[in-house]
């Protein structure tokens, strides 16, 4: 039974195959319209995340499957004190595959130990979010044709932003990329990520505090939101939330083919004027997210297109 808890649960070869499949789904959606007929997805969302949940549900419905689930812990038996281990054993009787979001880190990994169906981590607190990483990889690959030689800027909350850590780890496996880590001192990439991923693999990186001074060097600019729910107190959040905002003026200094990515939702870190710029790739990312989730579920379920 294959589960995807961490983006690195998929080898580079598996990731490439999955991105190829997702790319084909984008080109030929009709070919996959009923590959999951008779299959059921359970979306177990212990905390709200409308977009990720709907993306999973849309992905399954695009393939002719059905969906059950809950969208907050209040609506689930977790409110009665049921453990994750028990919940997944029950859900295994109802569905063929499950996507789990949980505020506690490691909850999907816990579920995977007891599950009889594939478990996909749809975000566990500030930890991992593998389908977002696959979405990011697909968007970069479609925009740039690959990863080699790219200078990738990651901007904003690099400490609590799980998408950032997952993306660094995944790109580090490909090698041949350079990272520019743009954040305030308080929100830098954790030391263990730098040591284990960048230093250990001899990948060039630099840490800077100013977006404008480095934007001209970037092929990819990955913006992140400073997330209120990751802070222990409101004062720190208010002090740092507006630190890094991408505006049209800043974008004028960037390469004409740079791509701007964002896991969304944005608050104000990308000015609305940027949306119409061809370099804005974040809504394209949302669409790619549906394709990678389709490809991932199809792969984990072991179904084939006719």
């Amino acid at each position, binding site marked *: 039974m294959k589960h995807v808890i961490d983006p690195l649960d998929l080898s580079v070869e598996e990731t490439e195959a999955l991105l190829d499949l997702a790319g084909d789904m984008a080109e030929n959606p009709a070919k996959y319209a009923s590959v999951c007929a008779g299959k059921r997805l359970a979306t177990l969302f212990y905390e709200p995340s409308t977009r990720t949940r709907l993306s999973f549900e849309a992905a399954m419905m695009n393939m002719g499957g059905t969906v059950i689930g809950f969208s907050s812990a209040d609506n689930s038996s977790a409110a009665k004190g049921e*453990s*994750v*281990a028990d919940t997944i054993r029950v859900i295994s009787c109802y569905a063929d595959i499950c996507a789990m979001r*949980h*505020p*506690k*880190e*490691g*909850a999907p*990994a*816990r579920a995977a130990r007891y599950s009889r169906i594939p478990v996909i981590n749809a975000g*566990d*607190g*500030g*930890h991992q979010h593998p389908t977002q990483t696959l979405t990011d990889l697909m968007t970069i690959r479609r925009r740039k044709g690959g990863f080699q030689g790219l200078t990738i800027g990651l901007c904003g909350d690099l400490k609590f932003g799980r998408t950032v850590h997952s993306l660094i780890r995944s790109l580090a496996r490909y090698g041949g990329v350079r990272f520019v880590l743009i954040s305030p001192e308080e929100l830098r990439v954790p030391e*263990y990520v730098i040591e*284990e991923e960048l230093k250990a693999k001899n990948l060039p990186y630099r840490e800077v505090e100013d977006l404008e001074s480095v934007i001209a060097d970037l092929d990819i600019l990955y913006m992140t939101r400073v997330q209120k729910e990751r802070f222990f107190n409101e004062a720190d959040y208010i002090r740092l939330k507006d630190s890094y905002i991408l505006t049209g003026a800043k974008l004028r200094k960037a390469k004409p083919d740079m791509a701007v990515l964002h896991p969304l939702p944005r608050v104000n870190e990308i000015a609305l004027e940027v949306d119409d710029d061809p370099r804005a790739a974040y809504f394209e990312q949302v669409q790619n997210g549906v394709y990678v989730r389709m490809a991932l579920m199809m792969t984990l379920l072991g179904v084939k297109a006719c």
Partner: protein
Amino acid sequence: MLNIDSLQKGVVIDHIEAGMGMRIYDLLGLDDLDCCVALIKNARSTKFGKKDIIKIEGDIEINFEVLGFIDPNITVDVIDDGRIVEKKKLVLPETITNVVKCKNPRCITSIEEGVDHIFRLCDREKRRYRCVYCEQEYKARP
């Protein structure tokens, strides 16, 4: 002076930091053994001043791996015919279960009932472990 007979056959776990003997007794599950077990607390030690010692009599199968995590200074001698026939080399185990607790308040282990606290070795040289759930780091003592 308290005297405990030397073993003819069994295992001596020596150089345990004073006060840690009972914890090691529990971790190794010695309570479940039928054979004769002696836990000596605060024995005189030229090296440490005080130490704990555990002597287990008989031919027993115990997994001593966890001792490498608890304290690499501990020695494990296998005794036969009153002589040391083997000095077990303690190495860091690949995983440790319910030896230390994950201290990350955001980890699923902080709320889930009946969950084992499992850490996996991620860097043998630096003696670093990570929680299998949230990847919180734990450094084994040098």
